[in-house]
């Protein structure tokens, strides 16, 4: 099984460890992981800013880069949602490209969904017995309907899952929203960080680095004891790995 990994721009830039964790998890399933070098970003910043021309150009680049791979895996619900739901929308009026976009959409999976589908729970080689709060990104939850998969993986780790208040609410990241409307975004992430802290969780995980950078940033500002990781990191073990926003010496 050959799997092409769409690293995503945020993982590439901020948290390469998530990418390597994804590779390990996929390889443990017996997959040969390929990272097409012509990838940059899924184009969502342009798309959500109304710049459809650049969004299409970047989408075409992704279509080319991931052409011919039977499986495309993305460690982000947001970027996976872009490929699966929005590329076909972008090329609605271009039949040829639309067909390619729909084919890519059919081959693309968010990481936790792919792992759960392929029996990853049985191949995990670490345990984590702490209390874990799981934040679903809005894209994973609502665009892709992902919820059970990451939880099944956490259960397989032996983690104690804890619920927190208003879990279905957005964390306030929203791509460029968080810098365009910083005080509204601040209020949203503050509510989220308080709810997570109040849950008593040791660790917060999510499948989306955008949410995690946002929530971790707020948790650290609040001096919350909650440590923050991408789900993939927890699944390969976080011993000795500083959480998102934590220093080397922690």
């Amino acid at each position: 099984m050959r799997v092409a990994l769409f690293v995503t721009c945020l993982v590439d830039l901020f948290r390469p460890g998530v990418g390597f964790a994804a590779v390990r998890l996929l390889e443990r399933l017996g997959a040969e992981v390929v990272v097409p070098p012509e990838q940059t970003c899924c184009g969502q910043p342009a798309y959500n800013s109304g710049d459809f021309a650049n969004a299409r150009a970047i989408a075409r680049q992704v279509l080319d880069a991931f052409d011919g791979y039977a499986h495309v895996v993305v460690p982000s619900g947001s970027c996976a949602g872009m490929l699966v739901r929005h590329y076909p929308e972008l090329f609605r009026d271009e039949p040829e490209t639309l067909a390619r976009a729909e084919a890519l959409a059919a081959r693309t999976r968010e990481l936790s969904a792919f792992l759960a589908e392929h029996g990853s729970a049985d191949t995990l080689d670490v345990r984590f017995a702490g209390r874990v709060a799981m934040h679903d990104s809005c894209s994973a939850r609502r665009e892709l309907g992902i919820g059970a998969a990451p939880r099944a993986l956490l259960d397989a780790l032996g983690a104690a899952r804890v619920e927190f208040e208003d879990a279905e609410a957005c964390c306030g990241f929203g791509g460029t929203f968080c810098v365009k409307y910083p005080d509204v975004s601040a209020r949203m992430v503050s509510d989220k960080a308080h709810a997570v802290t109040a849950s008593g969780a040791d660790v917060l995980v999510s499948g989306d680095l955008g949410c995690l950078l946002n929530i971790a940033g707020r948790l650290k500002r609040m001096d919350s004891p909650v440590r923050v990781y991408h789900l993939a990191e927890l699944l390969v073990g976080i011993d000795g790995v500083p959480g998102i926003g934590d220093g080397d010496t922690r």
Partner: protein
Amino acid sequence: MKPTSHAFADNAHRALDDATLQQALAKAGVGFVAKRRAAVAELPEFDALRQAGRAIKDHTLAHLDHYLLRFEETLQAAGGQLHWAETPDAACAAVLEICRDAGASIVAKGKSMVGEEIALNDALEGAGFEVVETDLGEYIIQIAHEPPSHIIAPAVHKTRAQIAALFEAHHRQPGLARPLESVPQIVDEAREVLREKFLSADVGITGANFLIAETGSTVIVTNEGNGDLSATLPRVHIVLASIEKVVPNLEDASVLLRLLARSATGQEITSYTSFFTGPRRSEDPDGPEEFHVVLLDNGRSRLLGGAFHDMLRCIRCGACLNHCPVYGAVGGHAYGWVYPGPMGAVLTPLMVGLEEGAPLPNASTLCGRCEEVCPMAIPLPKLLREHRRQEFDRGLVAGRSRWALAAWAFLARRPALYRLASRAGARLLHKLSRGRGRFAKLPLAQAWTAARDLPAPQGDTFMAQWRRSKRG
């Protein structure tokens, strides 16, 4: 009202700093969400109804001209009069003419969002009529001289203490000192003051949740009974409606009513759901002598078949407001016009112009919760994005944002260059973080770091490390 949607960012900032408003919003949000959730959970057929409701609206819109003609015919057969109005001004003029012809002095109004849209109160007051809003929430904001902040709970931004103070200031005669603190005391006070108005009003004005082509009926849903009193006691009843409100028959209205109450307040049905068909019949002991429907377009006909067509399905339940994290944080007034929240962020630019309404479609994380709870399955995030596309295409995006986007896209479209730039950025930021893992402050990132730290990159980019590992 003069829109202030262009100033959303400032409006939102003020709203976030307003402790009293925040107290009121905190109380409201949780209740609406929980009530809707319980009501939907109790009805296994909700999803099937949602699909049926959507199909009814889609069908009616696909024959909107025919259904409006049929409505006109049946309304007239029942003795009602229909007034077509293309613009808010034309709608106001039609209402004023009816009121003048009736020799009216007092006008009792039930809640109507179309009334807000056309700024009817200003027009009536300007023409010398005494206008009394009779829905408690509308009455509160009328005496506060404020617009509604929610389409079904207009005074949701007011606390009990604020309402008591308003009543104190507006109702109190010297020497009269009834306590006015508890909710029952406040409601009773309004009941007493407004009862008098109902009995003396010459004209009653209500909105319409639906128009029924089959029978020529207009439908309102209320809980207080004020709409029914406005429709029953005065000599003349005027219904304000917009063209997308029509549905084919009573069975179709039944489907939508089941969705409306649950989505709005979490009720199975409101206390009063009333169907009005023409003026009083010759033997009737009560009811108005005249029955008028003012039918407003205000740009809706231009939406039909276009990019915003789906918005015409909206039944004004308010569920998208109640579930919107942005609305929940800043309240309705920040949106700067009549319709707030996600539905308002779509409608406002269409009705007041994209220049004025430009910030609203951007003031959303596109989290999709609005679409998820919309009983008409309106793809609100998609429509917000469509506004953004038009703003971008029309050059309404601020220079700095546009420039940043262009610079980023330039790199994103050149993978080799992008890898160099991202690698340089990651390494620089990592180095600057000096092992602390985050930044409390960073040049050019104040918007981010004002409220939160910025996690620092771990080191080299994934792509660079991957390449190295494959080579080695």
